[in-house]
């Protein structure tokens, strides 16, 4: 059972108890506010005009709400010498994230399936080596990877960045699926073998549909990792092929005259929106997927 009803548990009553509850919620409220203030400031600033920002204080709410800064950030802010806003770079990110997440998830699922259900000599060693990849710091692979991409002719391109993310993500996706499949009864695989299905038949028709929780966790994990990546983006792409995270940095650093805080804030929120959206939409599945297997049913 994923959700137990705790409403029926007998609780203490009385003034002392009431005071403690009030104190508890007050403390929680203060911490909530503390965490939310940066976001509030960002949204408020992005909705102000430059004059208002100069005149008012950082924490004041906007008097005249205007979306000019958002429009500018999206389509006309200068990123380096190019002044088309974040739009083209946002699509770069999408063109990178979708294939990178899809490919790394499918390969991770296949790896996990083969490592647990079609055991071969040395499977544990191979898994240990794959797992080792999860602990390699990003910086370590920058130079060898740059060389590899150069040899492959993918340097400075989006497909090149997709390849980097797929390779780097495999360690995590394999780990997620391996841990999920280890809990799947081998009897199911044996039954499918007797039923006449082969390696891929069992994978696509039996195992993959069962692994929806693992797929959700892996997709969210990979999606946020790749969306938020800055280092690989700045190291392996140039100019027009930059992902949105790199472009955001360039928007903020491009200084021609006045510092447009409202545009910077709007741009930052735009760059963060895809990951925020995923947490809002699929957050519940994420938690459920992570705890799947911990409790049966």
């Amino acid at each position, binding site marked *: 059972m994923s959700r137990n009803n705790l409403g029926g548990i007998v609780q203490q009553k009385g003034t002392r108890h009431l005071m403690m509850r009030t104190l508890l919620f007050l403390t929680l409220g203060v911490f909530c506010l503390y965490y939310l203030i940066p976001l509030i400031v960002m949204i408020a600033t992005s909705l102000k005009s430059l004059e208002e920002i100069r005149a008012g204080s950082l924490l004041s709410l906007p008097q005249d709400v205007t979306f000019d800064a958002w429009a500018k950030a999206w389509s006309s802010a200068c990123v380096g010498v190019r002044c088309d806003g974040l739009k083209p770079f946002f699509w770069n990110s999408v063109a990178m994230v979708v294939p990178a997440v899809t490919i790394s998830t499918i390969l991770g699922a296949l790896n996990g399936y083969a490592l647990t259900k079609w055991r071969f000599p040395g499977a544990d060693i191979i898994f240990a080596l794959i797992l080792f990849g999860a602990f390699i710091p990003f910086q370590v692979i920058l130079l060898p990877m740059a060389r590899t991409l150069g040899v492959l002719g993918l340097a400075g391109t989006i497909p090149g960045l997709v390849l980097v993310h797929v390779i780097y993500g495999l360690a995590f996706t394999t780990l997620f699926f391996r841990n999920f499949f280890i809990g799947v009864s081998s*009897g*199911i695989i044996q039954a499918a*073998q*007797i*039923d006449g299905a082969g390696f891929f038949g069992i994978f696509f*028709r039996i195992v993959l*549909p069962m692994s929806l929780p693992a797929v959700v966790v892996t997709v969210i994990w990979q999606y946020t990792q790749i969306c938020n990546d800055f280092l690989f983006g700045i190291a392996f792409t140039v100019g027009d092929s930059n992902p949105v995270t790199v472009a955001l940095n360039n928007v903020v650093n491009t200084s021609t005259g006045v510092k447009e805080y409202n545009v910077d804030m709007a741009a930052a929120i735009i760059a963060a929106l895809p990951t925020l959206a995923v947490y809002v939409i699929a957050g519940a599945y994420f938690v459920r997927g992570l705890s799947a297997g911990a409790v049966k049913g």
Partner: protein
Amino acid sequence: MSDIRLEMVKKNFGATEVIKGIDLAIDPGEFVVLVGPSGCGKSTLLNLIAGLETITEGNIYIGGKRVNDTPPRDRNIAMVFQSYALYPTKTVRNNITFGMVSRGIPKADQDAAVAEISTLLQIERLLSRKPGQLSGGQRQRVAMGRALVRKPDVFLFDEPLSNLDAKLRIEMRTEIKKLHQRLGKTIVYVTHDQIEAMTLASRIAVMDNGHIRQFADPKTIYEDPVDLFVAGFMGSPPMNMMPGKIRTLGGQCVVSTGGPEDEPLDFLLPPALSERACGQEGRDVILGLRPEAIFAAGTELPGANRFIFERPISVVEPTGPDTMILFHHAGLDVVARVRPEDARPEGTLFMFEADMEKAKLFDAKTTLRI
């Protein structure tokens, strides 16, 4: 219908020998139960027949064809697993048809087969449900349906009833027996439950530690066990096994058990047994008496070769139809099965009567039957 033949089959997992050279010939249409304690290799043997494990040495023939290198899908077998192993994301209908889909059987034939099987097993109403929405007994039926629909030559059952509650287990046991009578297919059935083995089997193979100790029909296994292991494994409560010595008292052959702490009992052996066992004065033996062979004195029709003795009752265990009375003797708790109305409270001195016609003697060293 196919016969199954195993020739000197061995299976090692790494350095561990799990199956240590088994010969077994199963006739077409037979219901063979492999029974034994956990870890005796019975499930491994079933997996070898199914082709889910590769055999290390020896040969397996199904229907006269050597199948050592044949993958499970081509052995014309069907298997029911202990965990049911239903495909959780598929409906009951798709669980049953999965094998046919894999083999490219036309849709119309699939539908006909599903209709036939679901009527047979009374699962028509469940066809559109997922396994998660079924009770244990229903899942068991679906798992059997999935096996039956293939119309295989051989059915393999791996402890299919062990996840069911006691009442359902007895119901399903009867259904499996009826199914076998109706279909007449060869069945190999693995269980650790000796009652399941007794009730279902046409022949039982009692396994221990990678060997088959005895392969015979249930009555022979129960009445004529070859050794102590088989005798002790079959029967509930288990056979009483009292260590003793062969002695001659007043020209008659007896087994003396017990002592020095408790007073010895001299069980008088019937002529058939004494012929085989006597002559070796002082030979160490084990006297096997099943609980139903010891009862309250004078409560059964009189017969030859009864032995009457007196002991205080140590424990009384009513089971409903019978009451088990335990008394202490030869360092163990000996169980006697009496009618409830003959039972007396603990501590009472009680007259027991043993039917020595049913006694079994085993050699204490070799554990073989004398």
